[in-house]
């Protein structure tokens, strides 16, 4: 999952980045309100973790402006403000979830998964795609009931494509999902991952759309 983290605290931010990237997510970390808003509006993320007490612009303002501009990215607010009224204000400003500091890392990750699930309108985290079964919580993939061992980036790529099954994703979108902004992407790295996925699963799992990108066609 590609996640935008907006958090001004150096130590907490680095901890969240460690946690999420070790869980296979790509994290973009920004430390100010205006920068966070610009990133949210200019780039695609599957989820946003937003602190409230930010320099430059309060997190709630970032959220309100993004929502006013029509941005629908799921947002999890991370805050030290724990009064019920403050949680209500956060949710009313457009947050999808509200987590009070200090928090448990497993809870943070579970809540992010829940946001994805809700976005798909699905009751379960598990993605079913024909004979394929991808479980993001367990990090496992089953093909015709057999476990398939995937590398971290292969898993992330498959997850991204299956989450938007039937929708063509551009090379740029997929590369951002895999590497974020500052990853050094070799020009054919994406093609290599696609090639490996086709080999480990079955050739038709991913279709190339020439000049655009890739798509996971809905199963027949």
């Amino acid at each position, binding site marked *: 999952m590609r996640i935008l983290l907006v958090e*001004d*605290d*150096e*130590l*907490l931010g*680095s*901890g*969240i980045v*460690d*946690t999420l990237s*070790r869980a296979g997510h790509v994290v973009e970390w920004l*430390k*100010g309100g205006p920068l966070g808003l610009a990133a949210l509006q200019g780039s695609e993320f599957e989820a946003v973790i937003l602190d409230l007490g930010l*320099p*430059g612009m309060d997190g709630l303002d970032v959220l309100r402006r993004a929502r006013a501009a029509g941005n629908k990215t799921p947002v999890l607010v991370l805050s*030290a*403000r*724990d009064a019920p009224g403050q949680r209500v204000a956060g949710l009313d400003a457009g947050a999808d979830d509200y987590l*009070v*500091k*200090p*928090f*448990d*890392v*497993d809870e943070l990750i579970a809540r992010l998964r829940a946001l994805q699930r809700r976005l798909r309108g699905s009751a379960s985290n598990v993605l079913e795609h024909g004979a394929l079964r991808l479980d993001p919580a367990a990090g496992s993939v089953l093909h015709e009931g057999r476990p398939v061992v995937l590398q971290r980036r292969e898993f992330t790529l498959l997850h991204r494509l299956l989450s938007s099954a039937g929708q063509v994703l551009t090379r740029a979108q997929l590369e951002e999902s895999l590497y974020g902004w500052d990853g050094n992407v070799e020009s054919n790295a994406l093609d290599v991952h696609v090639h490996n996925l086709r080999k480990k699963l079955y050739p038709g799992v991913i279709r190339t759309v020439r000049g655009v990108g890739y798509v996971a066609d809905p199963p027949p």
Partner: protein
Amino acid sequence: MRTYSIQAQLLAGTVALLLAVLGAAAWLGFDAGQDEAEELFDARLATSARVLAALLGMDGKVREGLTDPVIVALPAPLETAVHDAATPLGHHYETRIAFQVRDARGGLLMRSSSAPQAPYAPLEVGFSNQRFDGRSWRVFTLRSGELWIHAADSDAVRNELSGKIARATVAPLMVGIPLLLLLLGLLTRYGLAPLAELARQIARREPGTLAPIELARTPPEVAPLVESLNGLLERERRFTADAAHELRTPLAAIKIHAQNAARASGEAQRDASLGRMLAAVERSSRLAAQMLAFRRATAPHGHLAAQRASMRQVLEDALEEVSPALKERAQKIAVTTAPAEDDIFIHGEHEKLVSLARNLLDNAIRYAPAGSAIEVSLHLQPRTVVLSVADDGPGIPPELRNRVFEGYYRIPGTAGEGSGLGLAIVREIAGQHGAHVDIGEARPGRGTRITVTFPAIVPSR
């Protein structure tokens, strides 16, 4: 000075005032009644004398050769009656009304039985006051041809009347006073009820409860008291809430790095997480220490004017406390004092002044670049003692120079992990010492200079 209950004061004051007013009313009533009665009785005395003269005149001359004077007696029962009621025979008071008729030479011709044998008054026309039988009498003397007529009544009659008038004036008031007092008591109790409730609420309060005080009825006299109490409670609550809030982020950082370390996939990952966790722990403990320092700074202070603190010693102690940080940042502190040889004293508390100086130095060390120099100066001026600390840091923009004194305020985007309490502590302590704090630039457009100006000790002669 002894303090009396407000209710008792109000009641006592009102009673005293009321008694004074009533006394005056009674006296005035008595006086006015007496005057009126005087005039009425005088008129009647004169009328009686004239009627008597007319009657005697109709009979022609008083019979010649009369040896004994004629005595007009009262019916016997009236002589001895004691009650004041009228009877078919007349009135007991007739014994106090008397007359004498005398000839031109003063010889007694006729008298009422209540009148004495001796002449009532000299032979002069008009009103006069006389004493007879141990009583005061009012006498009217009339001359009619050859006859002198004295008509008299005793003062007892008159006083009784005016006394009755005065009593009639005062009596309803006497009944009214207790009623009024009762009403007044109830009114003051009602009026003071909000104070009583305030006292009850405070007494019933659990220790540590910081909820604001709310009264069912807050009259304008009590409102300032409730407001300032609630202001205090609010400050206390905000401090506690802020403290909890400020600790959440460092705690979250500690927790996440601890969890990351626990599930690290290799030694390098684990060490990185543990290192950051340690940094987060250090920051939390520094924050807690600053919170305590702020608490101590705002704690009630003794009589500062009675204490003397050596500013040289204060500076020395503060420098010693910051020396490890100074070494770590490879910075140097240059101290200049004037006068160079003598110590400089101000009225104040040593510990708090050290805390003030240390916080100024801490800020300079934290925000000035590593390896830079920090300038500290301590100057005795004619009326002031000026302590200033200047650094080469990023400086404080003029529009934020007031905000940085607020507790937990940090300039957005500032590197380093200040608690946001340092300058709040400085201002608090400075305020207690009657000093003011100014923020400026160390050099035009660069750095920060914070100047604290204390009042100097005025030499006693």
